[in-house]
């Protein structure tokens, strides 16, 4: 951490403790707090305690009746939903090969967000222990269900196609199910080829059954076309019911199917395509579409016609990739450059506008000041300096003793709020006298003229204060002093 960074973070500590940091600064400080040992944690701790203590003198307030009961009821709901979480239904999109990996592998946080709204609205039916957890899936398979688990996103429209195809035909060549399935009845059904668990197994590259490609348009799905069951819900068994297995049975099965597809020889794949497409003879449109979808994926690599060789194909692909990269690079550089130029232009414009405002204000002030100086016989000047709270502020008081008029110019003094004004005071004879009336601050106007100044014709030293007062004015100066100065008068000078 550089010294500059350290100073910057040091300056943000108080606002962080107060909760007043803007988002970017907040993120930066949290990051530094968590990663950097040089961060002033001791000081931060003091300020965090301090801001928390500011709450301590608020008058305690009676809480609404039954609040605790309601909270406890919601806690009970959360607890109940947590116990049934293992049998919560999940919607898994089989159109995404990797989606299930993320969903099932995602570690369940012990402090999972038991959002009250979510907990309150969960209507997952409790499943008795003696009921086959998979049977519920099968009975509800054709019904689209929104996933209600916290952190889950609503499935994309493509993945919400639900059970359009109706019954899935038997899967030719289907191998036996791994013994890992907890329910022996399911194993039996697999072995016997009973298909009432259709949809439980993903239709991805399954031998003999054409898969519906991920990019398959929903509108293109033909009624009655097999293999269109793209979504299903699964009730996983409770963890204690699950067999000891490094991955879940479903994932094991799916993994097996994927590996099976990957390991297939290209020739057998071609044959499979032939076999699978023959099933669409009754549905020529679906068959043709299916062929068109499948051929570009694999057919282009092994071209039986001999018109395009694999080398040429990959060569073209390579050239396209290179061209695309070059175009993307140029576009990126062009846009990034544009953004910087635009930002620079905006900054320039902003700076120009600010300069114009300042210039206009300065011109106006100079005119008034010149007018003041030219209309009084003798003018004096007192330098005013900002107090601790307004350390960046400074000003000048031009005064004319004979005319009892003054002209106050100041810089870097904020107009703190709309209900406040500035008041000049001159200390005389042990007390403070008002020097002119209250002056309400205006945007970008950093001067005001004063009339009816106290008599300064005597020799002496006068303290001058500019304070912030209520717009209605004040009889004595408040403790919010903005500028101070010292006026030393010599009577003979006048």
């Amino acid at each position: 951490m550089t010294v500059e960074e350290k100073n910057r973070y040091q300056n943000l500590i108080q606002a962080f403790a107060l909760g007043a940091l803007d988002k970017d600064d907040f993120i930066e400080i949290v990051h530094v707090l968590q990663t950097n040992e040089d961060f002033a944690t001791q000081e931060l701790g003091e300020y965090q305690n301090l801001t928390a203590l500011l709450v301590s003198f608020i008058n305690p307030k009676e809480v609404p009746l039954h609040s605790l009961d309601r909270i406890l009821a919601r806690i009970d709901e959360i607890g109940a939903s947590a116990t049934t979480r293992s049998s919560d239904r999940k919607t898994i999109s089989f159109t995404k090969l990797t989606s299930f990996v993320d969903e099932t592998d995602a570690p369940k946080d012990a402090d999972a967000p038991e959002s009250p709204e979510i907990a309150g609205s969960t209507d997952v039916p409790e499943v008795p222990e003696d009921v086959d957890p998979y049977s519920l899936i099968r009975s509800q398979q054709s019904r689209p269900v929104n996933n209600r688990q916290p952190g889950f996103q609503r499935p994309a429209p493509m993945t919400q196609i639900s059970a359009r195809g109706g019954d899935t035909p038997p899967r030719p060549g289907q191998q036996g199910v791994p013994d890992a399935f907890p329910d022996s009845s399911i194993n039996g059904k697999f072995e016997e080829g009973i298909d009432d668990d259709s949809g439980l197994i993903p239709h991805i590259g399954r031998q003999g059954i054409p898969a519906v490609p991920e990019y398959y348009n929903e509108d293109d799905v033909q009624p009655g076309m097999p293999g269109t069951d793209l979504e299903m819900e699964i009730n996983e068994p409770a963890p204690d019911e699950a067999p000891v297995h490094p991955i879940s049975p479903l994932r094991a099965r799916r993994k097996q199917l994927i590996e099976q597809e990957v390991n297939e020889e290209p020739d057998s794949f071609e044959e499979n395509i032939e076999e699978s497409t023959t099933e669409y003879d009754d549905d020529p449109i679906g068959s043709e579409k299916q062929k068109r979808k499948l051929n570009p994926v694999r057919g282009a690599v092994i071209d039986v016609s001999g018109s395009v060789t694999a080398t040429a194909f990959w060569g073209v692909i390579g050239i396209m990739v290179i061209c695309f990269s070059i175009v993307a690079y140029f576009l990126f550089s062009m846009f990034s450059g544009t953004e910087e130029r635009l930002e620079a232009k905006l900054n320039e414009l902003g700076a120009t506008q600010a300069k114009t405002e300042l210039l206009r204000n300065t011109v106006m002030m100079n005119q008034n000041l010149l007018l003041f100086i030219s209309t009084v016989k003798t003018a004096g000047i007192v330098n005013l300096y900002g107090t601790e709270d307004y350390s960046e502020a400074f000003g000048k008081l031009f005064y004319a003793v004979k005319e009892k008029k003054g002209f106050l110019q100041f810089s870097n003094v904020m107009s703190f709020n709309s209900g406040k004004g500035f008041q000049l005071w001159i200390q005389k004879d042990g007390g403070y006298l008002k020097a002119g009336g209250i002056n309400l601050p205006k945007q970008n106007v950093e001067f005001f003229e004063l009339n009816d100044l106290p008599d300064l014709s005597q020799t002496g030293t006068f303290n001058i204060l500019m304070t912030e007062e209520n717009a209605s004015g004040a009889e004595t100066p408040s403790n919010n002093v903005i500028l101070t100065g010292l006026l030393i008068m010599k009577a003979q000078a006048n």
Partner: protein
Amino acid sequence: MSDHELLVKIAEKDVEAFKDLYKRYSKLVYALVTKIVEDEIIADTTFEEIFLIIWNKAGKYDRNSQNAYCWIITLARNKAIDTKRRKLNSTTLDEYTDDYENYMVIPHLSPHIDPLDLEMAVNISENIEKALMNLTEAQQHVIYLGMYYGFTQSEISKNLNIPIQTVSSKIRLALSSLRDNLLHGEA
């Protein structure tokens, strides 16, 4: 049982500990929430949500800090301010997710914070109030805007039409003065 011990037990899902903590903190938290949120109905809901967060996220409390007071009060303030911001300007805020809650609502306390509990806080509350009164009106105003209005520095700057650097300097000076007043017994 101390606040710290209660919070540790809540992290272990002890309902009795939760009830005890609720008894101790509910009035103060409710007063804070109503002061920030202002709308009574929303304040009631927010208040209940705060205690639900305490129940759910007590595991995120740093046991080494032994500072349950600061954790609970900061959490309550963060949640109430977040609710208020959503009420005023719901479109510009991020979606309220669990990650968001963990990052923006659960306090990021310093690992070197001194221990503090409600009893200690109440005992020195008078001194705090006096120290606060010793600040200038402007300093008090800035603290108030950040603390109860939930304004960020840039929002204060925009609201008061003053440079953000000035706001930053005001906040710095205000809290430094407050700390010095307390440390040196000037309150």
